[in-house]
């Protein structure tokens, strides 16, 4: 299996706080990888390392290597890296502008001005995000006027419009109701044909439903990393077993 990200001996500090400890991880192409683990164990932090969103945090220091397609992320231009590695946040964050402009935002920032081209990109992205049928008649309406689940799919569409290779999702359904959650999960199953997806989740069922690989984190370390089926069926580590059976966390 081809890996797209190789995380090697990564240590991360916020000031003096040692948050990621010797993390090693391979993320495989066109697979869904889930990060699970108790709150504060560094799942979001590792996710942000992958598209260098940690650059935005003052006094965050990263040691070790994170290779994206064989090249250290440090050696990418941050904007190029983020165009290729998209991110969907925990709470939907559409921009205060129309649905169309939301999806066209990324391509526009990368210099695409042709109206026809933009229209095609937007339609395609909305279709892939399974939102097109719901909004096709009011693309001019504000993105903020959508429901939470629709907003989250809009954010996914916004990401897809950039034609990324990887989509990072940080608890994308934690602010949504079960039906909206189900829709996003179905969407993830569709998207993995084309994209590599990394998803942080607190929901064990969700991890088993959507992911191919699962990494279990605790206190900044990866305790266990395996195929999802095996990790949940026969955890090798006692801590993993305790966590997935709900004995703590």
């Amino acid at each position, binding site marked *: 299996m081809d890996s797209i990200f190789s995380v090697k001996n990564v240590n991360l500090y916020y000031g003096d706080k040692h948050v990621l400890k010797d993390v090693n991880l391979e993320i495989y192409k066109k697979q869904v990888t889930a990060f699970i683990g108790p709150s504060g164990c560094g799942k979001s932090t590792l996710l942000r390392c992958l*598209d260098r*969103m940690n650059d*935005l945090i*003052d006094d965050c220091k990263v040691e070790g290597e994170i290779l994206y397609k064989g090249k250290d992320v440090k050696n990418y231009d941050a*904007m*190029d*890296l*983020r*165009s*290729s590695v*998209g*991110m969907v*946040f925990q*709470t939907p*964050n*559409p*921009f*205060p502008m129309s649905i169309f402009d939301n999806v066209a*935002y*990324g391509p526009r*920032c*990368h210099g695409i001005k042709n109206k026809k081209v933009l229209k095609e990109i937007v339609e395609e992205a909305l279709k892939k995000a399974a939102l097109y049928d719901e909004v096709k008649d009011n693309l001019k309406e504000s993105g*903020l006027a959508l429901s939470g689940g629709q907003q989250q799919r809009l*954010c996914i569409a*916004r*990401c897809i419009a*950039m034609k990324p290779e990887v989509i990072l999702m940080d608890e994308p359904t934690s602010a949504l109701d079960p039906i909206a959650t189900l829709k996003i999960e179905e969407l993830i199953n569709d998207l993995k044909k084309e994209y590599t997806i990394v998803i942080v989740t607190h929901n064990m069922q969700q991890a088993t439903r959507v992911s191919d690989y699962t990494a279990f984190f605790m206190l900044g370390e990866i305790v266990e990393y395996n195929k999802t089926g095996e990790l949940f069926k026969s955890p090798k580590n006692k801590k993993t077993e305790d966590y997935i059976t709900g004995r703590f966390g």
Partner: protein
Amino acid sequence: MSKRKFFDGLLNGITYLFSSLGIVILALIFVFIFSTGGSTLSFDLLSEDYYSTNYVVRYSSPYEGGNYVYSPSDNEYFSSKWGIALEDTTSIEGTDAISISYIDRESPLIDGLVNVSNSNYHHLEIGTYISTLLVNTEDGRVLSSSVRNGAEKMCETLNQAQTITNMNLSRGGGGIKGSLISTLYLILFTLILLLPLGIAAAIYLSICAKDNKITRALKTLIDMSSGVPSIIFGLVGLLIFVPMLNGIIGSDGHSLIAGALTMTIMLLPTVISTTKETIDVIPKKIINGSLALGASQTQTTFKIILPNAIPGILTSTLLAIGRIIGESAALIFVMGTQIQDNIILNQGSTTLATHIYNLMGLENPNTSLAAAIAIIILIAVLVLNILVKLVGLYFKKKGLK
């Protein structure tokens, strides 16, 4: 229980008393200003020059004289020979003056006077001031009279005249066109400097600057300096900007540009903090959302941050305009108190507020004109405040998160 009720009632009573007292005092101020200045307020006031126009005229063909009839009032003096009445008054500048209070329709002076400078006939109007008069009598004597001798003497001199060799007239004036334009220019140039500086600084402080001691000290400094009395900024302007500008734009002391610079530094803290407040409430997740799509910081600033900061920018602009209109102390230092009709950017001039200051410093303060300008300022400030409210309401309705 009843004791508690009693004290509640007492305290409420006191509150009502003081608040109604405040309102009554405010109302009285308005009534006073409107009753003093209301009658002076007119459209002409806004479009007229402050200084009167002077004419020198003569009447050279020997004039026999008519026999005009008019019944002058107490302080009027009527020349039945020429058919005009003169009156002692005070000019707009507050000095003694003699004005023409009546002209008979048949009077030779109405259209018979010749302007010395261009030899055209001068149409004489009621309200024109006469400052000096030089005439020839029938028997060849030369007589003269001026404002200092009063209207009665002027009228006597006129009565003995056969020809008028030289008469100094002045007309118009008392308007505030110059000060109005100066105020508008000051607002314009201040905003041109203030907005880019203020907005850039606000963006720097809330987005770009690292959160460290220096940044925090800077923020505190900015917050504090919005409370600095304006006269201190005026002093800074006088000591720094005025000499500096003398070298750069060739001004000689006071200038409108120095005023704009001074207003800019005076208002910068307010604009920075108001804009910063609106930027700070833009959710971080939206800004991060933009960056996570591979947009640059600059693109994020122009496409996300600035459009969302518009309410704050508009509000601070309106507030700044209000403060420029109302400012006097600082402007007296850097723009002077000399009223101008033609506004030149590298020369001093008065705004509406310092125009009032000038008027009240005259030998005979021109209270009614001052009050009329006060009304204009009050209305402008009122309108600005209403606009601020409307801006707030509009953007609240639009519901930017």
